[in-house]
């Protein structure tokens, strides 16, 4: 008999007023009992709509059925047969717009907590089972993966399981891409990312850090080293600025820089040499998940006031509802329908305020969202000493400008077809480098598709 509760078993969380002072994980994870109880909410329906909503095709009802029976390790095997990063996905995947949005239970009440169950299974495995080194027969073919973010790790993992000798080239000193420099510790502990990377290395994947492709080596030189195919998962690229007055003042950061200083370079820990501004009041400009991460990070670093400044209304915000909810709980103030016009500085060149213009919503624009329209004469100042720009990115030119035959769109994103093949034979691409800034799970889906395409390409090449 299915559990007919209309709501998910609640996720235990750190108290908002405690967690906004530390970098420990916010969501604490289900216990075995909670997981089993939530699992019984799944109706195990025949047409499995949830699976079609998953970019990496996790056999969701099958693993949930195992959880319900307490066979957690069986559940883990089912998940990892198609998803090599379950502990990451269970935490940061946008399930509410993917699998959970298709769940039948969602029609009346909340969907099954698929993401929470995935996280539980992955954490249970990490805590209780030590992975045996899998015996994979090498097929003698070499593939290079550029970038060790979610698309690169997924592509590398799938290819390694098929017997390929895979080398990942990473520009930073640490593998993980946006999972280590972008997403904060309190949402995705770095020890978990490291365990996933360790698992790939146990599969025989070689990770070469401090390699900037386009500089240290070019795509052509990688081929010359004997690699037969290349996957490019180099990420979203250069942070955008608004082009308003005052963006070079001391105290203005891109979200990329702010988050990298804190996440990758651990500026929050005294043990590390990384400096970061000690802010009292912070304005984060933007309404996406990255803006939420930056705001919640600033709060944890001790800022008394942290504002989200967003030109549309909360309804149009691209951030996940869960992130907005968490941010509000932690005391982040939302100043929607405000568009920055300039940043004002002290005579020492430090930020003292941000001037914004009030907006109102007009007719829907090309994005389908109601267009913000400025209210003339409504300029006003918000007193802050730090401004974090989180308004998107534009693609990095390093690889496309050093590789013949690799086409890019007018925006600079790499062109790739539905099989993730670029315009250069043997070169595949996916993730933000192709789509522009998007989600972890879409990047993983692209990495997975690319791995299958590379396998086919090399086999057909003979």
């Amino acid at each position, binding site marked *: 008999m299915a559990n007919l509760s209309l709501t998910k078993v609640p996720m235990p969380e750190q108290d908002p007023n405690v967690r906004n002072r530390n970098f420990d994980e916010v969501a604490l994870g289900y216990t075995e009992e909670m997981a089993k109880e939530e699992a019984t909410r799944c109706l195990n329906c025949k047409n499995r709509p949830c699976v079609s909503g998953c970019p990496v095709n996790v056999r969701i009802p099958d693993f949930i059925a195992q959880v319900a029976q307490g066979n957690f390790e069986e559940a883990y095997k089912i998940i990892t047969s198609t998803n090599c990063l379950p502990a990451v996905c269970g935490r940061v995947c946008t399930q509410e717009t993917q699998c959970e949005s298709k769940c039948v239970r969602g029609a009346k009440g909340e969907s099954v907590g698929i993401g929470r169950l995935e996280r539980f299974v992955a954490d249970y495995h990490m805590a209780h089972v030590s992975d045996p080194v899998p015996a994979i027969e090498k097929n003698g073919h070499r593939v290079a993966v550029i970038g060790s973010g979610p698309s690169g790790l997924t592509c590398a993992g799938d290819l390694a399981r098929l017997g390929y000798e895979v080398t990942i080239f990473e*520009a930073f*000193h640490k593998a993980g891409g946006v999972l280590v420099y972008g997403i904060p510790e309190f949402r995705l502990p770095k020890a978990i990312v490291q365990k996933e990377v360790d698992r790939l290395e146990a599969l025989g994947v070689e990770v070469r850090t401090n*390699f*900037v492709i386009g500089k*240290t080596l070019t795509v052509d030189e990688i081929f010359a080293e004997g690699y037969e195919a290349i996957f490019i998962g180099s990420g979203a690229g250069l*942070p955008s600025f608004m*082009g308003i007055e005052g963006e*070079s003042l001391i105290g203005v950061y891109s979200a990329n*820089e702010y988050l990298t200083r804190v996440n990758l*370079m651990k500026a929050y820990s005294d043990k590390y040499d990384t400096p970061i501004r000690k802010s009292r009041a912070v304005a984060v400009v933007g309404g996406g998940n990255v803006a939420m991460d930056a705001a919640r990070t600033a709060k944890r670093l001790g800022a008394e006031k942290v504002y989200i400044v967003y030109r549309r209304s909360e309804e149009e915000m691209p951030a996940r509802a869960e992130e907005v909810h968490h941010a509000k709980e932690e005391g982040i103030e939302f100043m929607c329908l405000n568009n920055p016009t300039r940043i004002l500085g002290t005579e020492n060149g430090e930020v003292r305020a941000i001037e914004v213009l009030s907006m109102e919503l007009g007719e829907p624009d090309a994005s389908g969202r109601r267009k913000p329209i400025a209210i003339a004469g409504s300029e006003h100042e918000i007193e802050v000493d730090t401004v974090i720009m989180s308004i998107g990115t534009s693609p990095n030119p390093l690889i496309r400008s050093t590789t013949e035959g690799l086409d890019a769109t007018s925006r600079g994103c790499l062109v790739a077809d539905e099989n993730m093949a670029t315009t250069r034979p043997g070169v595949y691409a996916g993730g933000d480098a192709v789509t522009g800034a998007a989600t972890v799970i879409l990047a993983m889906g692209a990495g997975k598709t690319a791995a299958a395409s590379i396998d086919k390409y090399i086999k057909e090449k003979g």
Partner: protein
Amino acid sequence: MFKIVTKRQLNEAVTLMEVEAPYIATKAKAGQFIIFRIDEYGERIPLTIADTDPQRGTVTIIFQAVGTSTKALATMNEGDFIQDFVGPLGNATEIDGYKNVCVVGGGVGCAIAYPSAKALHNAGAHVDMIAGFRNKDIVILEDEMRAVSDNLYVTTDDGSYGEKGFVTNKLQSLIDAGNKYDLVIAIGPIPMMKFLAEVTRPYGIKTLVSLNPIMIDGTGMCGGCRVTVGGTIRFACVDGPDFDGHEVDFDELMRRNSYYKAQERESASHECRMLAAGDAAKEEQKNG
């Protein structure tokens, strides 16, 4: 891990190191830089490549011990390993087509000016070089610079070596004497580059400066190294580090490079307080 194979003290504060980094040694061109991270807890610090030896697979860096990381690096020795060393980053200095060039270095900036002079010299250009220092004690790389220039002019602020005066005066006098330069390259402290660009501006001589803003990744991801050039935001790591000296907003760059000055002072005084507390505790124990 990257092995330090040679260490030489050029003056009291400036150190030369050759580091084993074969990929970078093969690829690096004059004007490009590396980023190093001394250990797990260190910052990522950019340093311009002073020289390379592709046969031996080594990259030469020359640096002044000024911040936490460069001071720590200066204490390392031959045979020690640097945790991370990545490059070559940035664009190479544009040297094609120039026939008559004046390369100006100021202080430790001479270490960065030297490879540009060498590249131009090897490409067949006539190279005059001006190397300015505060005084005789800190003169570096004189033989190396002399070897790659047609004329080397050393200046010191106090006249204790070479000609007395600033590099700006020397360049002005060379222009006044009828030298027709089609390119001036200026590398040194920000005020020096700023004033040197003012010397060449009236003559319309193309002037390249090499900028050294604060950066993290060095590949265009963080945007920390943004500089205003000709009124638009450029990233020194992917668009530079060389820019047209007549277009750079030097005052803004100077301000941005002092981003963490206040904090560095605070961390230094924090250390002092800790020492003081430690001393007090010892004192107490003795008296106790």
